[in-house]
Structure formats: C-alpha cells, structure tokens
C-alpha cells in the first residue's frame, strides 16, 4: 500500500448504489485510488463486479453516489472521462471480416492516433497474426487482440472485466507484466477477476460487503 498512501487521490467513488432490474445490487460502495494503484474486485457471480465496472466506464448510471476524477465529478464532463479510459468487457469487439491489425488500428485511430498499433500487437504476442482475418483466431487469440487495444493507445484508467478468461498461462503472465509497466507509469487499473492474475500491491474490494441484504440484516 506504500504506493497509494500519502499521495493524492486520483479516482474516487463515494457511496455508489447500483440497481439492476429493480433490485439493488450493491449499496454504499467507496474506494479511492492514487496514480499507479490497482483495485481488484472479488465476489460471487451476480455480486455486481461487471455492473461496477460499467458504472466506472459511464455505460451505466448509479442510482446514488458520485464518482470523482482528480476531485471533479465525472458526470460533469463524461466525454473527457471516456477519453481517459480503456474498457475491456466480456465481448471482444472484433470484426471478423477485418484483419487483426485493421481492427486494432480502427480503435486506436478513434482515440486519436494509430501509431501504437504495432507495439500493442507485439506486447500481446500478435505480431505474426497482424494480417490474419479475425475470423480465424482462436478464443484466446481473440481475447489477446481485445487486450492489445490497451497498449495501442494511451489512457489513464484501465477497466478490465475478467480479462484472463480463455487466456493461457503465458498470456496471463504477459497481461500481468503489461499491467505492472502501466502502473509504474502512473496508470490506474480496476480489474474484476476470479483467476490467477498476479497483481502486486493491489487493493482488494470484496463486493459481498456492499450487498444490500447485509445492510438490513439484524
């Protein structure tokens, strides 16, 4: 915790409440993250890990609470918030008719510059697959192509939803190295995972402590 203690808070959630389909998923969720820190979300299926990540990305709106970046509420300038984050969800967002390189160049270009595409491909071991149409990729390769977006363009915040699903051990280790390098450069990572992803000096958020059923229990 030495990295986050004593330094300024960059990204903070205050008393977030989330409701899905008329049912409260979690209530009163707080965290604060300094530059270079990581937050690991743990909890059973349905405990709201994915919902929280979608709230942090701005895809979903919390029914209560606020989210702040550098002291200013995120809801004041959602476009600036979108520009500073990378979100990797359950779906890979690859167009099967295009090559891996073209897919990546599109997403990087949309965020300003496609200059980092080569580096992104190399970092996730996809250099040889750059000219391969995405329809021929295996599930793990698709996952890596999706993760390569992280390295292909810059962002101050990574939101990763179960990033290790379908990855082999070597790729999981590669993702761990990518996260470590990114945090060393001051990036913030929020990751939901059940898997064996090794993250040094990470804060852990146990989603079950924010479950609404506990709040009202005697």
């Amino acid at each position: 915790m030495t990295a986050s203690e004593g330094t300024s808070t960059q990204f903070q959630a205050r008393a977030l409440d989330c409701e899905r389909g008329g049912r409260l998923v979690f209530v009163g969720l707080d965290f604060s993250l300094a530059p270079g820190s990581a937050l690991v979300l743990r909890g059973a299926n349905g405990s709201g890990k994915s919902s929280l990540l979608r709230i942090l990305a701005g895809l979903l709106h919390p029914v209560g609470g606020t989210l702040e970046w550098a002291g200013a509420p995120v809801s004041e300038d959602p476009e600036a918030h979108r520009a500073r984050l990378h979100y990797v969800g359950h779906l890979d967002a690859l167009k099967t008719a295009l090559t891996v390189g073209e897919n990546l160049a599109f997403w990087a270009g949309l965020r300003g510059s496609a200059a980092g595409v080569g580096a992104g491909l190399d970092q996730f071991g996809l250099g040889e697959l750059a000219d391969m149409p995405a329809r021929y990729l295996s599930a793990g390769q698709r996952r890596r192509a999706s993760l390569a977006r992280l390295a292909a363009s810059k962002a101050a915040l990574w939101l990763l939803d179960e990033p290790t699903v379908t990855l082999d051990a070597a790729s999981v280790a590669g993702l761990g190295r990518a996260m470590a390098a990114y945090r060393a450069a001051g990036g913030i990572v929020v990751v939901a995972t059940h898997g064996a992803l090794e993250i040094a000096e990470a804060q852990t958020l146990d989603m079950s402590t924010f479950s609404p059923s506990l709040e009202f229990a005697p």
Partner: protein
Amino acid sequence: MTGFYRIVGHELRLSVRGGIGSLVALIFFVVTVALFPLGVGPELEVLGRIAPGVVWVAALLAAMLSMERLFQTDYEDGTLELLALSPLPLELVVLAKCLAHWLSTALPLIIISPVLSLLVNMSADGLVMLIAAMFLGTPTLSLIGGVGAALTVGARRGGVLLALLVLPLYIPVLIFGVGAVEGAISGYGSTAPLMILGGLFLGALVLTPFAGAAALRLALE
C-alpha cells in the same frame, strides 16, 4: 471530426468485405421493380403511369431491409459498447453509421435506377427528376431508419418491429418523392415537392442523431 470519418471508412470497408450481404438491398430493389411489368402486364401506358410509385416503394423497402443490421451486429459483438465509450459523441457515431449506410446502400440504388426506369417505361423527364428526388429523399430514409434500428437493438425479431416503426415515418418521403417525379412527367413542375423533400432531410439530419443516440444509450444500460 477525424473520428467521424474513421467510422464511415470502417463501415464502408466492412460492407465491401461483407460480400453478398451488402448487395442484398440492391438485388431486392432490382428484382422487385422487375416483377411489376410481369405482374401488371406489358401495356406501356399503364406502366408509365405507375412507374414513379413502383420505383419509390421498392427503394423504400430496400432501404429498410438493410437497416436491421445497422446496430445489431455491433451490439452483439461488443463494438457498440466501445463506440459508446469512444471520445466521439454518440450522436456523431449514429450520424456516421447512417452516412455509411446511405453510401453503401442508397447510392447504389440511385445509380441503378436509370436502368430500372426503362423496365417501367418512365419518360426521360421523369428519370432526371427521379434521380434528383432520390438524392434528396434517400438520406432521410437512412436517418429515420437509423432511429428505428437503434430502438430495436437487442430485440428479438427486431426486423418486423423495425418495419412497423419505420414504414409509417417513410410515408412523407414517398408522397413527395413520387409527387416530384409526377410533376416533372406531367409538366406541372416539381419545385414544391423537392423543397419539402429537402426540408424533411434537414429536419431528420438535426433530430434523428439525438433520438438514435438516446435509444442506443438505453439499449446499453
């Protein structure tokens, strides 16, 4: 704005790589119009009288047919989430997708319409006006269809629902599109219908991106 053009380019590349799928609307248009001389009979006078309506109705249906996939594939493969998270406002994303749809679907319909107008015995005056009216009217079809496609994203049997939502809204374009061509054929002039088509286009251009983006945000919640 570079992001806007990147999405348009990306969509056009996808429709080129998509093979036969992107030609379905064009083939549908040709086949539908070609059926009329067979069904109505070979009297040139009758065909000439119904020609503007036949071509416009076929164009309307062809444009709608291809609309269903506009956001559905992006929704299913996760692309829509990432587009919503891109720095570009979602309204511009919707507009870019509609522009790409117009370029890849409606423009080929306009290009092939001179050939089809021969099949239904349209006069030369009518043909020139048909092309002008289609240039003004079909962008409105793409924009309105975009709202329908955004509203039916994630719905099962979305295609049928889309037709019910969108076809009534296509009626003004149909009426004034046909009116412009008939005005040119009969010699009464087409200025008024053309101006109304232009007005419909401008109205749709301003309003539909906001409606489409709002519908997509709901679908992503």
